């Protein structure tokens, strides 16, 4: 009997020892999907036959002594902006519902090469921006902790499916917080790696200079395992970094004593006020880091609204340019949330965009200076627990400054980590940020925090 919930690391240990068969594991997840996804809507397309075929192949390979590593035989889901050879990749949109790519995205190929089993394509906000929407060809994903609640977005199906244990990990993308938001609301660990670490080739773009691909999973360790598989230079992506990839998992478990953490409280206490439960949970998390021997000090940066304005003024025209043709010719084939956000985006001028890029340079320099004597920055990932799914305003991304987009502007690695629960049992999170290409320290700190606190033990009751 396969346990209801397993982390990637736990399953990998069992698979390597041949105490768990990839076929059994995949079958147990397919049963779970059939039983639970009707109320979660996390999958757009389940690839049951393909997953069983790949699981049988993995089992035979492992039995033959060819164990590939900790992703071998692990069932994962792909946000439906990751292209898959011969399988529709829709962006959760009518506009691309018949789009069947000829090849896998580069990061998908890497995951398959590492032995991962693709279980299906997951719900997303339309083209990673418009949602939660109720007027698309598929319904929005719902939060497993309370199905009346929002998953966060845009990697909504990934957040829901991983939290519900339908898959052990999944892919997301993050242009302004689309990995960290669902990770926060669904109680997962989700890292937006350094810009350029994971190839964007074959991933439907939202905004070229802000788009980051990355994993969502139950723990920091699982994120390290997935990141290891996904990261690597790809000449086909002009922004792909050509530098050695460290062993992320090896960095875990090392002492975090002496790490210097700057706590940016004004982001969530003044600039985008978090509720009492979130503030208390982050304060307790900062104390937990101090208890681990880290040095936590207050850090003041430019107002959050400045970072958000810079990010939005870059995201909007880049996204508009990508969709310009279809917006002109098929406007109402897009969902209302996406198309109206794009109509507003069309009003951003060329001068606005260049001013935003000039501001970006200033803000990148500002964070680099601020982190010269720090290893990490800590702040909120979201101002509250997950709100009701029907309460998200159309222009929410402009109404309150995003707590996450600052680190898309800077390209820094940033991760959501669960740090508690509300009285009603909804997860709370904080965000931890590192220097560019020091993703390993982010993962190491997140893992140390998870090991020192009890929050990872609780799973949603479905």
């Amino acid at each position, binding site marked *: 009997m396969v346990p209801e919930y397993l982390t990637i690391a736990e399953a990998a240990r069992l698979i390597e020892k041949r105490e768990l068969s990839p076929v059994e594991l995949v079958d147990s997840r397919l049963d779970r999907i059939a039983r639970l996804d009707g109320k979660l809507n996390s999958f757009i397309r389940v690839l049951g036959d393909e997953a069983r075929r790949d699981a049988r192949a993995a089992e035979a390979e492992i039995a033959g002594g060819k164990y590939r590593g900790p992703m071998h035989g692990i069932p994962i889901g792909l946000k439906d902006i990751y292209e898959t050879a011969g399988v529709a990749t829709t962006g959760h949109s009518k506009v691309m519902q018949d789009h069947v790519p000829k090849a896998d995205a580069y990061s998908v190929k890497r995951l398959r090469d590492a032995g991962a089993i693709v279980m299906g394509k997951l719900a997303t906000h339309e083209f990673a921006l418009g949602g939660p929407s109720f007027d698309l060809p598929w319904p929005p994903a719902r939060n497993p902790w309370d199905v009346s609640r929002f998953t966060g977005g845009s990697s909504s199906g990934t957040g829901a499916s991983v939290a519900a244990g339908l898959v052990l990990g999944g892919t997301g993308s993050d242009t302004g917080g689309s990995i960290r938001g669902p990770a926060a609301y669904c109680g997962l660990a989700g890292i937006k790696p350094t810009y350029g670490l994971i190839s964007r080739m074959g991933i439907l773009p939202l905004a*070229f*200079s802000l788009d980051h691909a990355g994993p969502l999973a139950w723990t920091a360790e699982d994120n390290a395992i997935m990141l290891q598989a996904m990261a690597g230079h790809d000449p086909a992506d*002009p*922004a792909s970094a050509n530098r050695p990839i460290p062993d992320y998992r090896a960095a875990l478990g090392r002492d975090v004593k002496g790490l210097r953490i700057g706590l940016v409280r004004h982001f969530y206490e003044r600039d985008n006020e978090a509720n009492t439960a979130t503030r208390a949970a982050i304060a307790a998390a900062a104390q937990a880091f101090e208890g681990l021997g880290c040095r936590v000090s207050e850090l003041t940066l430019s107002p959050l*609204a*400045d970072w*958000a*304005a*810079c990010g*939005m*003024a870059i995201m909007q025209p880049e996204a508009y340019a990508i969709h310009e043709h279809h*917006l*002109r010719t098929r*406007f*109402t084939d897009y969902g*209302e949330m996406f*198309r*109206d956000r794009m*109509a*507003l985006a*069309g*009003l*951003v*001028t060329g001068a*606005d965009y*260049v*001013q*935003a*890029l*000039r*501001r*970006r*340079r*200033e803000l*990148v320099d500002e964070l680099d200076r601020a982190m010269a004597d720090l290893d990490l920055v800590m702040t909120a990932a979201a101002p509250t627990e997950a709100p009701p799914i029907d309460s998200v305003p*159309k*222009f929410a991304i*402009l*109404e309150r400054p995003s707590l996450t987009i600052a680190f898309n502007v800077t390209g820094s690695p940033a991760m959501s980590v669960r740090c508690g629960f509300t009285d009603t049992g909804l997860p709370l999170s904080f965000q931890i940020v590192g220097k560019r290409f020091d993703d390993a320290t982010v993962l190491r700190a997140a893992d140390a925090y998870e090991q020192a606190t009890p929050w990872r033990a609780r799973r949603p009751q479905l």
Partner: protein
Amino acid sequence: MTRQELDAALARLGLKVPEKERDEIAAAIPLLEDVQKRLRPPGGRNVAAEPSHVVRFPEA
């Protein structure tokens, strides 16, 4: 931006936005104007201040 100016701008963009949605977009314009204002420091920016460049040249 007035509603008339919005209608003209949407026409220039070639977007056929349903009437009801135009009202909601018009109501959100102050949010966009705040973004536009925040990008520009009072008194202007040093004329030589360069934008960030995503694509780097290969090292020599």
